[in-house]
């Protein structure tokens, strides 16, 4: 395939809450949660941040990193499960805020945690076919977990934007492969504030089945094996799942380490896997090969095989790295967190 990543940009809010702080409120044992989830803290949006503001900041970083002319962008797709409006696109605000209007197509995507990678695939198709010059795919969320629910320990905020095109690539996308079934492991009904999930059902029939199927499917199709890759990123709802799935597939801890951002960030849902890829691109060298598999409940997985080009070194430092965005966090207590997340109704 002659299509790939022209630029990328990430955004993570400054605030964090520690797992201990949440556990204290609900009388849970923090150390067993830390062991179970491998998450130490999670990001929390500011009072005036939502999926739209996060998507815009990530998009602006992507534009700035490679000096992309926004007028060249012919499509913007924002994947999220927390679009501020049920009806009225997030992507129109992004398009206006990066100066890409009016000659483009936009739409919002939703597929639990993999709407962002589905947006990458859509952009790949449009760019490779020549329908658009550049496409922008965003995964952003201010994900919700009901107070006291297990999800509350992981549901975080953040977003990542990728500019997809055919020229001036920092990484070539060799191939993509998807595996999708109707598996109701996690959902949120219209008008409901918090998602419901199938507990342990989200594991084997959900995450593991889809991730391994997509990953092996892609490697089979292009004839690669785990040892052909320098790095691998798997959807990270917690630290445990991606570590385990990597082991099942035959990837090492060293391969997944740079992209495993979840222990310090939490699960940014539509941003999760894409954030791991951004963190990996932050340190990858020209010629490095990267394997990525996203997972979205409902359920499906998108796998990608990516090769980094020489251009990465030219533009890498022109926007903040994921490491930079994760540094200097401001910690908050549960009461402030509850206010920020709108859990206190005024």
């Amino acid at each position, binding site marked *: 395939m002659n299509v790939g990543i022209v630029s990328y940009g990430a955004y993570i809010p400054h605030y964090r809450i520690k797992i201990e702080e949440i556990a204290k409120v609900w009388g849970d044992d923090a150390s067993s949660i830390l062991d179970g989830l491998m998450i130490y803290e999670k990001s929390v949006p*500011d*009072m*005036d*941040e*939502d999926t*739209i*503001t996060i998507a*815009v*900041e990530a998009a*602006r970083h992507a534009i700035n990193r490679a000096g992309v002319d926004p007028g060249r962008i012919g499509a913007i797709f924002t994947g999220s499960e927390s679009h*501020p*409006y049920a009806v009225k696109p997030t992507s129109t*605000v992004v398009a*206006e*805020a990066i*100066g890409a209007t009016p000659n483009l197509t936009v739409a919002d995507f939703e597929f639990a945690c993999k709407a962002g990678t589905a947006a990458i695939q859509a952009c790949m198709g449009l760019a490779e076919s020549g329908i658009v010059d550049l496409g922008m795919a965003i995964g952003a969320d201010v994900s919700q977990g009901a107070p006291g629910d297990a999800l509350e320990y992981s549901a975080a905020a953040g977003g990542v934007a990728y500019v997809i095109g055919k020229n001036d690539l920092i990484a070539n996308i060799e191939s993509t492969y998807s595996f999708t079934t109707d598996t109701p492991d996690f959902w949120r009904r219209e008008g409901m504030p918090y998602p419901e999930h199938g507990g342990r059902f989200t594991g084997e029939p959900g995450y593991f089945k889809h991730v391994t199927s997509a990953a092996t499917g892609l490697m089979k199709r292009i004839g690669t094996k785990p040892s052909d890759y320098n790095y691998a990123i798997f959807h990270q709802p917690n630290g445990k799942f991606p570590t385990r799935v990597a082991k099942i597939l035959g990837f090492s801890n060293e391969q997944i380490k740079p992209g495993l951002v979840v222990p310090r960030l939490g699960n940014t849902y539509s941003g999760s896997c894409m954030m791991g890829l951004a963190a990996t691109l932050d340190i990858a060298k020209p010629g490095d090969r990267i394997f990525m598999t996203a997972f979205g409940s409902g359920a499906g997985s998108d796998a990608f095989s990516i090769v980094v080009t020489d251009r990465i070194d030219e533009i890498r430092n022109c926007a903040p790295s994921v490491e930079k965005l994760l540094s*200097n966090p*401001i910690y908050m207590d549960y009461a402030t967190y509850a*206010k920020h997340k709108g859990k206190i109704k*005024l």
Partner: protein
Amino acid sequence: MSVPRFWRRLKNLYNLIGTHCSKCGGYYYPPRNMCPKCRRNGLVVPFKFKGVGEVVTFTIVHSAAKDFAKNTPYILAIIKLDEGPRLTSQVICNHNDIHIGMKVKSAFRKLGEESEKGMIYYGTKFVPLIDP
């Protein structure tokens, strides 16, 4: 603020688009459709500001109007953009760090919303240029 009234100014609020008088060289934000110096002789054109400036003065608002009540306390400031004009906006930073002369850059944030059912307003606030 009604929907059309916000929509009319949305590009300005999102991207700090003000005006420049190509006659006298003056820069204006908020935008003006007449140059206050040259008046009818002026020639104003849209101008996108870089979004970098410094805090001229500030306050921490503890008691706000209804639409802002849930965000208190927040920092309100007058910011002088590098190109010259001054504007009023909020600065998002630790309340102990804000000071006159602080260098700031623009950030995309929610300005407010009509209600839980209503329109959400987005626009430009400011954050420290350099992380403390």
